[in-house]
């Protein structure tokens, strides 16, 4: 017997770093329409392969193909395109507002617009999302007023959260949008708890958990899967794999697992993997999974394969850790462009109409911003009162906080 070689420590590295040639040859992309669509009551064991493939509907020609196609009408698709364009324009303006000092911080969705915008269309009133900071499409597609979002971003006198939360950490019960924490992964198990409650009360509503690829490494993610599996909770558990957790490539969280969706298999949870830049595929999968939850068939784990084109936040510079041109090489393309091309292929859209629509959504965003700015921005104009800072810690203010408020002179 020969002696074993000394142990070696392994740290995964992305294929390419700045200065290198972007390379996504390791991302296996099946043909659009090639992945089967099982019945919603299929035995999770019989569809394990769906956790390793990518469900896609839109092909290179912009046609919708295969068994997952056909869940939305042309009108709905045109509306979906408008939602994504609005979110993109909203992001651009808020990104600029942050650079102008009107707020402290912003996080944009560039490249990931389809995930939250399309998913929102599969939900019913009363369902509850437990989002992270990159699902504002849930609000935009739900018709939540952009002015309210901006009031929150600017922490102004009309901020529905009274200036207490970091920008983009929205909350809207009416929209089925749970208060964003900002701590990662915590909301995933809460979504399962909410779904358990709905089942305990024999309700018809379902919950949706959201998490990023990086945060799946948190214990909360595993607790969520364990509880969802044990109690067959009516919940859809969404992993948005945008390839990058700030500067950390997805391989650091994924480790030796083939895919993030595959994490569900060990828990006996039905798991799908979908093209996150394909509005039609996202919607079809969302419909399938929400239907399963609503029919007491239990949880579904979905991995959305997408790419974070922008920086993590306004405090991040991706050129320090990935090639500048990487996003252009991303093989699943741009979600807005793909849906636009599909509508054009169907004769329901044109370049002119697109230009016109771009101008319209920009107008809407700008007029919302003008309205919001009337009520102040972070460092100028109206702002929440110091008194507001002391309110709402408890339902009823306890004596020690009353004393402190007095000391603060408010």
């Amino acid at each position, binding site marked *: 017997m020969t002696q074993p070689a000394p142990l070696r420590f392994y740290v995964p590295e992305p294929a390419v770093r700045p200065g290198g040639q972007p390379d996504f040859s390791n991302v296996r992309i099946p043909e659009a329409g090639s992945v089967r669509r099982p019945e919603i009551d299929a035995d999770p064991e019989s569809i394990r392969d769906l956790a390793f493939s990518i469900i896609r509907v839109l092909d290179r020609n912009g046609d919708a193909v295969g068994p997952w196609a056909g869940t939305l009408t042309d009108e709905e698709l045109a509306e979906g395109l408008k939602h994504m364009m609005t979110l993109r324009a909203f992001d651009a303006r808020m990104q600029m507002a942050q650079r102008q000092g009107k707020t402290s911080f912003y996080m944009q969705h560039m490249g990931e617009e389809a995930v939250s915008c399309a998913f929102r269309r599969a939900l019913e009133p009363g369902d509850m999302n437990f989002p992270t900071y990159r699902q504002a499409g849930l609000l935009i597609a739900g018709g939540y007023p952009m002015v309210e979002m901006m009031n929150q971003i600017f922490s102004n006198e009309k901020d529905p*959260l009274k200036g207490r939360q970091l920008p983009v950490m929205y909350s809207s019960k009416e929209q089925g949008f749970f208060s964003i924490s900002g701590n990662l992964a915590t909301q995933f198990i809460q979504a399962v*708890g909410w779904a358990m409650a709905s089942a305990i*009360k024999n309700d018809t509503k379902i*919950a949706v958990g959201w998490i990023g690829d990086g945060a799946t490494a948190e*214990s909360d993610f595993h607790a969520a899967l364990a509880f969802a599996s044990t109690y067959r909770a009516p919940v859809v558990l969404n992993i948005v794999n945008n390839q990058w957790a700030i500067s950390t490539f997805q391989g650091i969280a994924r480790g030796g697992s083939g895919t993030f969706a595959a994490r569900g298999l060990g828990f006996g949870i039905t798991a799908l993997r979908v093209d996150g830049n394909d509005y039609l595929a996202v919607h079809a999968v969302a419909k399938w999974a929400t239907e399963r939850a609503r029919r007491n068939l239990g949880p579904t784990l979905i991995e959305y394969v997408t790419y974070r084109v922008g920086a993590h936040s306004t405090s991040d510079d991706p050129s320090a850790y990935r090639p500048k041109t990487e996003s252009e090489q991303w093989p699943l393309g741009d979600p807005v462009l793909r849906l636009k091309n599909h509508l054009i292929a169907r004769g329901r859209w044109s370049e002119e109409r697109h230009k016109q629509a771009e101008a319209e959504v920009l107008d809407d965003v700008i007029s919302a911003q003008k309205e919001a700015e009337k009520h102040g921005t972070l460092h100028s104009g109206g702002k929440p009162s110091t008194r507001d800072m002391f309110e*709402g810690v408890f339902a009823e203010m306890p004596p020690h906080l009353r004393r402190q408020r007095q000391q603060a002179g408010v």
Partner: protein
Amino acid sequence: MTMIEAIRGAMDVSMERDDNVVVFGEDAGYFGGVFRCTSGLQRKYGASRCFDTPISELGIVGAAIGMAAYGLKPCVEVQFADYVYPAYDQIVSEAARLRYRSNGEFTCPIVVRMPTGGGIFGGQTHSQSPEALFTHVAGLKVVVPSNPRDAKGLLIASIEDPDPVIFLEPKRLYNGPFDGHHDRPVTPWSKHELSETPDGHYVTPLGKAAIRRQGQALTVLAYGTMVYVAEAAAAETGVDAEIIDLRTLLPLDLETIVASVRKTGRCVIVHEATLTSGFGAELAALVQEACFFHLEAPIARITGWDTPYPHAQEWDYFPGPARVGRALLATLEA
């Protein structure tokens, strides 16, 4: 009635009155909990209202937060306070802040029950008193009952409270008042007047202390097991101590504390938890702020030592009646 029966009674009454009250935790369902606090609740209310969970404190509290956001009122059990740390992020960053950060749109009316304190040879993983880790967090209420009557009323109040409550149950008191004389026979609750517990629903309001012994010579601030240790120490030293059982650490009944210390001019603080940055430090600061010109002696703190909770040396660690008695005398003579 024992503490265990009182705590179970509080959950029973609350579940009976309100369908939204649910109870769960490790071993809390079919078996009824390792301390038997939830015994019989699953049989009475069904497995959808009292059930077993995977061993995940994070999962228990995280799920409870989601349920509370839905509109339920979960009262969950963490098997030992020593096991709560995996749930700490959910408690601190989520439960405690949900009302504030959502401007009241989502709230978190949950109770996290956990056995606390030593005296059962539980070593470092079954003996800790982590109350100060919770009183330091804005948005939490922290309750420590010392007897069956209070335990039932305080737990009902906690379940009905619109905000998250950390409910610490001194495990050495589950079956009887314990004064720290570990070498003497155990006294059962049946011989104690505070074991008489009203039937049905009643509330012991949060934020109200109780004076357990009227006295003139000095004030003792205690909670949980230490109330009985202080009583024993006062009896054995003959010091005419006024013993205040805080019952709720947050919100704190400062009024009762200040009135007593202004009367006696002396203050001894007793807790099982470690000294440094313990809740006694907060009490000492508050007392000197409010009573400085009435104080005739330095405020004394008698606590567990700043070591992990030991096993063989349990009674060297535990601030028993001898150590507390010496502090009473020293404070009187100072």
